């Protein structure tokens, strides 16, 4: 397969072993500009590990990773911040890159937490902190966005709004997104490519392909497969020639 220049990161048969136990193995996937690739799978199936392999956090891996961008935004699943550090939301936004103040405000506005800008990070609720994490990742205008359960702890309406935001960002910034989510409903509305993991790639393809796959059905059950088909013909907008979204 030839490599398109829109490729941002490519995993070739990648795997990672810790204490002689494979966390995940044999994963091949490609994230391209403007595309959303979603990893699904049960707990312990290696979703976060795959994301960390793609990001280069794990060094001694099997297989290989080709990364074609350094502009990366990452929302980790678990983040342990030591509160011996006095850190305001504003300081946190500047953590890995010096970003202009209006870009910070814009990102915090998009995720609905601009009012928390001068709050101490330790005083935020779980959902608020999650919104700050997303804001930080998108404020850098990354080419590759890796989101590991980005809306955990966010209230229901917020969850939908944030997924819409993620979809919009992938369109406007034309960035590639590697998304990990357990929420099959929301995942399937926006995803271009689904990779179903269970220690290895059990199936992958468009959401519809995956929904029809028998391995997927045994992993998630018959109901999950019906969830996907609901979204089969859900197109409520078209794209104008400038790339803007027009509602039907």
């Amino acid at each position, binding site marked *: 397969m030839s490599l398109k220049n829109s490729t941002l990161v490519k995993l070739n048969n990648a795997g990672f072993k810790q204490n002689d136990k494979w966390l995940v193995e044999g994963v091949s996937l490609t994230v391209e500009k403007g595309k959303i690739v979603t990893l699904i799978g049960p707990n312990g199936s290696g979703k976060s590990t795959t994301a960390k392999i793609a990001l280069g956090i794990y060094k001694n891996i099997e297989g290989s990773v080709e990364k074609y961008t350094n502009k990366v935004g990452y929302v980790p699943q678990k983040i342990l*911040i*030591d509160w011996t550090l006095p850190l305001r939301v504003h300081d946190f936004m500047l*953590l890995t890159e010096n970003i202009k103040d209006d870009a910070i405000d814009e990102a915090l506005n998009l995720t609905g937490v601009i009012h928390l800008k001068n709050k101490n990070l330790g005083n935020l609720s779980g959902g608020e902190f999650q919104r700050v994490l997303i804001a930080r990742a998108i404020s850098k205008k990354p080419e590759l966005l890796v989101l590991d359960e980005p809306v955990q702890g966010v209230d229901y309406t917020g969850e939908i709004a944030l997924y819409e935001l993620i979809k919009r960002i992938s369109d406007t910034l034309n960035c590639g997104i590697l998304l990990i989510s357990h929420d099959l409903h929301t995942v399937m509305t926006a995803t271009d490519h689904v990779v179903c993991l269970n220690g290895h790639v059990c199936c992958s393809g468009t959401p519809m392909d995956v929904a029809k796959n028998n391995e997927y059905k045994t992993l998630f059950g018959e109901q999950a497969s019906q969830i996907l088909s609901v979204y089969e013909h859900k197109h409520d907008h078209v794209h104008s020639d400038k790339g803007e979204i027009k509602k039907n």
Partner: protein
Amino acid sequence: MFDDFFIRALIAGLGIALVTGPLGCFVVWRRLSYFGDTLSHSALLGVTIAYSFEINIALSVFLISSVVALILIQLQKKTNLPGDALLGLLAHSSLAVGLVVIGFLTFIRFDIMGLLFGDILAVTTDDLLIIWTGGALILLVLKFIWKPLFASTVNYELAEAEGLNPDRAKAIFTILMAAVIAISIKMVGLLLITGMLIIPAAMARNLSDSPQKMVLFSIIGGLLSVLLGLFSSLEFNTSSGPSIIMAALILFILSLLNIKQSIKLKN
């Protein structure tokens, strides 16, 4: 007005405080107080080597502390012992080796108390040069690695994922720690250097709501501690190290009052 030695001690102390302020913040944030202790204990060996081969004390201490830091990193990789056990092992064994070597150096008159607790009489003009140029270099390098070091202090994986190379920053920071111990050993003494790193930073934590403020207050706290400490050392004829650390302690206790007030305001 003051004797020359006292002016020299003041200039030296203020130079040291400028460097220990920001470095101390990282020691507190990254929980490295025991690491600082280990490096400074190994400094005694550095001092004995300096006397034996007649080389500069700061240089010799810097080299020995760096070697001990490297050994520590290797031991962490190759053994299953917990980090604090390894630190204790290195701290006490290097202190012991240093003391045994001193025992053999009967031909040199040693002021052990001065080594352990600092001696303002010992600061020479050469030392001033080492402290200020060394200190300026340390601060310059720290400024250079600030972003990756700080980002990985907050979260290692974020820093690594977003391409900041935190491992390199950590290695460089380790060398900076060895360097700051080397330049402060004469003034503060090897048993109390970690105090100079931690106490002003701890005081600053009580007063700050952002990392920049904490660094600033930590520097100011260090400078005040040196001034207060040295004047009382002169006045009461006490060792310089303990006097400076006691001044820092008093500032820390005062900063606790501020916490109580802010808790009252919140309720």
